Structure formats: C-alpha cells, structure tokens
C-alpha cells in the first residue's frame, strides 16, 4: 500500500529537498512583503516631510500682527470745516491721524528719517481702517479711542519670530531702533496677533500684510465652472457615443487612440492652443477666467472621456439586453439605464479631472492669467488669476512675508483638493452598485 502511494504521488513530502524549497519560498514571500512595506513607509515619510514643511511655514499666514494705538480723531485733521460732509470725510488725510498717534506715543523721535521708520511700523492700510470707522460712525470725531491697526510686514515678521534679533544690524531689515520701539509697544501690551481675515477677503497686494487669496479663489471658481460646463457634457456625450453607438472601424479606432494620447499631452501645449485659438483667432479677453476655463476644458476632456468610457463599460450587458429586449431604442437604453448607472463613475472621473484643472498653472501662464491683479474678478470676462498661479506669483516675490503667504495659499489649495477628492470618494461609495 505504501509502495503504491509512493509511486502514484511521485514525490516525498518529507524529503529534504522539498523542505528546503518550501523554506526558500517562504523567505521570498517575507522578503517581498518587507520591501513593499518599506516602499510605502518611504512614500509616507516623504509626504509627511512635505506637509510638515508647508504647514510649519504656512500656519502663521492665518494670523496677522496688529498694533493698538490711541487714535485721536481730531476735527482739525479730518473735518476742518466741521460740516461732517461724507464726501469731505472720505477724502480726508487719515494717515495723519496714525502719524499723530505714533508721535504721541514716541515723543522723543523727531528726525525725518526716524519718523519715516516709525510710521512704517503700521501698514498703510491703517488709514483705510480709520476712514471706514468714521464713515460708519461720524460721532467718533473729536474723541480718542484705542484702535487696533494692521502692522507693517516687517513688524509682523518680527512678532512671528522670522527675523533674527541676534544678527548684525546691517544684515537685518529691521534696525535696532525699530526693535526698541516694538519692545516698548510689546511691553505696553499694544501688539497682538489676530486671525487674518484679510487673507480670505482681500485680493492680491504689493504689501504682504494686505495680500489675500480671495481674488485667486474667485478666479479659480469661475475658471472651474467654465471648465465643468464645457468639459462635462461634451466628455460624457463623447463617451456614450463611442461606447454605445460608434461602429467599430478604423476611423473610430483612430479617434480612440488620439483621445488616449491627448490625455498625456503636456499641459503647456494646451495653453499654446488656447492662446492661438481663443485669444488670437476668437479675440476673447486676455487673462479672463472664460479663456482659462476653455483652455482647461480642452485639457480635462480626455480625462473625463476615458473615465466615463470605463464607467459605461462597467455597466453589465444584461442591462442593455433587458432594455433592448423590451423594445427600447439604443438611445433610450443609453439614457434611461446605462447613463444613470454609470453616473457615479463618471462623476468621480470628472471630479478628478477638475481637481487636476484646479491645480494647473502652465497653460494659464500662456493666456495671460499670470498678471498682477489686485481686484477680485466680478465676472468671467474680468482679468483674474487662479490659486496655483497666485502661489507661483507670491513664491516669486522678494518680501520675506510672502514666504508664509505662499505656504498658506498652498494649504488652502490643498484643502480644496482634499475636499474635491473626498466628494469623489463619497459619490462613489454612496451610489456605487454591484451586480
């Protein structure tokens, strides 16, 4: 009996050779698993380093230094005639009020040069703040009120610890006398850090303390809306046509290959295309979200088409047959059944394509969305910039304070990207069907 088993099995499961082979196989498996783990850990570490470097530099962009001064809204300065005429109040010299307050705080400063340095402790935005206050409440005139005013960017940098006090004075942007004034203000409790609302409500500015990303956010929003309105319907219809209606022939194969290739074309090429067609031929406004959206739509189309085709192909044939077998036309089968069933996949692909577009810079440089634009765009024809371009512009600016602005803007952009991807995951989970 044993003999027979030996013969038919043809191998001895206890032999040394077999045991060795087994051990080798196990070792190979463990080795592979460890290498995989190592790869993932490396990737995670690099990601963590990246996020840490952005966050550690960027979080300070969300707070801003304010200097509290006792402002005397003296009638001689802002309303010499005592008429309280709003027009006159609007044109008055509010900067003078700030200067007076600083002079009162530091009476020992007298030379012109020192005074100029002293006045630069407070941002020139302070005058606007005071103007708004008076416009809201003209009764302030003649009274002395403590007011928190936006500090200049150098003061802001000192408060946030970005300027090394120990460095040689000549190498420092902020000189010793300014540091001394700051120390006095600090000791009096007049320096405070507050949430930087302006970062989210202001447009771009040459003054770092006043620069915000609202303009870029609105520009990005307009651009993305245009991109979606153009790319989504065209992409989905193309995918349906190619999957459900197009006959298999050489011409359609050619189209298919080209769509796949277009998805891999460098984005700057789409920018050149946009420049050539939308600006030079169609004469649409330069730097406008309209043109940016159209250009990005061209870039996003292949992504949407490919994703939509995959989603449509995932709908089982049995559904098509069921509809056709009931006497539905091909079009009815496509629009009543296949499109709704593939919609979650299509939407996921579209959102991924749009978040790609949201982060795109290169093609927008070609159509002039890289200009310095301080106003928040009011329509799709206004000159605008978008968030990644804004980051690019700030990263290029010499002022030290723009470093944190750059990182802050990156954080906001990453936040939007995470939101969009979370939405894609949510849609997929919620509406995905299994057969």
């Amino acid at each position, binding site marked *: 009996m044993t003999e027979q088993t030996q013969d038919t099995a043809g191998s001895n499961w206890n032999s040394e050779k077999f045991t060795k082979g087994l051990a080798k196989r196990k070792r190979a498996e463990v080795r592979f698993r460890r290498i995989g783990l190592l790869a993932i850990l490396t990737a995670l570490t690099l990601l963590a380093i990246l996020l840490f470097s952005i966050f550690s530099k960027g979080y300070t962009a969300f707070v801003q230094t304010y200097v509290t001064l006792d402002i005397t809204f003296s009638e001689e300065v802002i309303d010499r005639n005592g008429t309280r005429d709003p027009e006159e109040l609007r044109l008055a010299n509010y900067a003078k009020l700030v200067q007076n307050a600083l002079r009162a705080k530091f009476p020992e400063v007298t030379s012109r040069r020192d005074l100029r340095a002293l006045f630069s402790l407070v941002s020139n935005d302070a005058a606007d703040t005071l103007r708004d206050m008076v416009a809201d409440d003209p009764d302030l005139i003649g009274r002395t009120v403590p007011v928190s005013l936006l500090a200049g960017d150098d003061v802001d940098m000192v408060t946030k610890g970005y300027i090394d006090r120990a460095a040689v004075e000549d190498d420092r942007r902020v000189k010793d006398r300014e540091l001394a004034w700051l120390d006095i203000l600090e000791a009096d409790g007049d320096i405070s850090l507050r949430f930087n609302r302006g970062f989210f409500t202001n447009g771009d500015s040459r003054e770092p303390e006043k620069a915000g990303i609202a303009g870029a956010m609105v520009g990005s929003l307009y651009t993305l809306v245009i991109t979606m309105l153009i790319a989504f319907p065209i992409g989905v219809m193309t995918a349906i046509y190619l999957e459900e209606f197009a006959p298999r022939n050489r011409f359609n194969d050619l189209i298919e290959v080209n769509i796949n290739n277009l998805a891999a074309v460098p984005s700057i090429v789409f920018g050149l295309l946009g420049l050539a067609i939308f600006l030079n031929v169609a004469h649409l406004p330069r730097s406008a979200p309209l043109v940016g959206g159209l250009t990005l739509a061209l870039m996003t189309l292949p992504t949407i088409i490919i994703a939509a085709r995959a989603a449509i192909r995932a709908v*089982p044939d049995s559904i098509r047959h069921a509809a*056709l*077998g*009931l*006497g*539905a036309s091909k079009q009815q089968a496509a629009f009543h059944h296949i499109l709704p*069933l593939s919609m979650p996949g299509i939407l996921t692909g579209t959102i991924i394509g749009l978040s790609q577009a949201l982060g795109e810079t290169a093609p927008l440089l070609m159509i002039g969305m890289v200009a310095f634009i301080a106003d928040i765009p009011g329509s799709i024809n206004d000159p605008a910039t978008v968030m990644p371009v804004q980051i690019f512009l700030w990263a290029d600016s010499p002022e030290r304070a723009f470093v944190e602005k750059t990182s802050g803007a990156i954080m906001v952009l990453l936040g939007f990207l995470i939101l969009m991807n979370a939405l894609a995951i949510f849609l997929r989970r919620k509406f995905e*069907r299994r057969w």
Partner: protein
Amino acid sequence: MNVQIQAEKSANAGMDVAEEFVIETRNVDVFYGDNHAIKGVSLNIPKHQVTALIGPSGCGKSTYLRCLNRMNDTIEGCRVEGEILLDGLDIYASGVDEVLLRARVGMVFQKPNPFPKSIYDNVAYGPRIHGLAANKDELDDIVLTSLERAGLLKEVQDRLHSMGTGLSGGQQQRLCIARALAVRPEIILMDEPCSALDPIATAKVEELIDELKENYTIIIVTHSMQQAARVSQKTAFFHLGDVVESGPTEKVFTSPEDERTQGYITGRFG
C-alpha cells in the same frame, strides 16, 4: 431543398388545419464574421404552444432564438440570411422597425436581469416607453395585471416600490417575465430561463410557462431534457447549427427518427 420545404409545408397544412404558424423561418443562415453558426434552418413555430429548442452547447439554438427578435443586430459582425416571417411578414425586410418588433416578440434571458429600480418601475418601463398607458391608473393596471400573470403579485404586493434587484433569483426571473408581459407581446422568447434558478423556483417558472401558453406563443431554449419534456408541445433538436429533428415533443422524446437525437436525449453525448 426548397421543394422539400414546400412539400413539408403543404403536408403540414393538409395534416392539421387547426395548427397555425406564427413564425415561419426558411433557410436561415447566421454568420458571426467567418463563423457559420446556423446553416439553413427552416422551422415553423405554432401559435399558442410552447416550442422547446434543445441541443448541445454551441449548436446555435440561442443564436436562432435571438434572430427571432433581431437581438443579434446588437452583436458586431453578425449577419443573418434567409427568411424569417412573423405573421407572414419578413422581419429582416428593410423598413421593419426592430424596436417595434421587440415589443411584439418579448424576451427573457438566462440570468435574471431586472433593472436596478423598483419592482413597479421595472414592469412599468416597457409600457412607458411605448406609451401604452394613457394615465397613471392605466399604468398601475398594466403593472398589476402583468405581475399577476407572472404569478408574482401575491409575493410583492406590499413592496412594489422596493428594489427589483432585492428579490430572490426565482422572483427576479418572474419579474423579468412580468416585465416582458407588460408590453403585451405575442411571442415570448426564453433563453434558458431556469438555468440560474434552484429546483423550487424552476418549478414555479415552468408552471407559469404552462399557464402563459394560453395567450402567448412561447419559444424556450433549454439544456434540461426533463424541462423540455415537461413544458413543451413542440421540440426542435439542434446540432452543429442545423435542425436535426423537429416535431411534437412526445414523438421526439419517445421515438426519435434521427440517431443523433436518440443519442442526445438518452445522454450519450452533448
């Protein structure tokens, strides 16, 4: 060949005047690209009876079935030659609307394939796209009657608006039958309707087929010899794309003329 068919036809007519053919096929050839799947099949389908198509896998019975409502049109590279007459009219003639044809010739598939919608919407879909109901009440009526005829109404009465895909396999298949009935077809094609069902669900569907033949002509493809014997009145045995033998079920099963039929039904090949 032609002469033979003519002769057969007149013989048929002479023999049994009551028997009325709803579908007549003459010399049907089907090609998938270069593959000659059906070779000159001529077969007549009697009205209000169950015709079973049996044969080993790949013999062309499903292909033949799908010719009858032109579902083969959806397959790339498929070509149908010959004449298929529905009530005397060629369904492959130019000008025939295959969408309308499929409303007259309903189909039930091998795997239950309800739409991922409510039971009600599943049944109502056909009437909706063909505009069979003038208003909501009429539509309700069609849906309920169809479910009743498919023997499903009692089981789903109180959950008409829950998902059709949530039913058991057998219930899903009867839902698909109800969905086909809702379009008021004359003929129902069934492509192995019970192959994915357990024996109890199969028994129910077979019972249903037996009832339906009062009002509908049914053509069923099946791999189960017992099923063909149980439900059908006529049987056609397909082999390698050809109809080897056709006739009354009883005769085909008890005294087959061809030895290939004999071999298949006794389980010697296939």
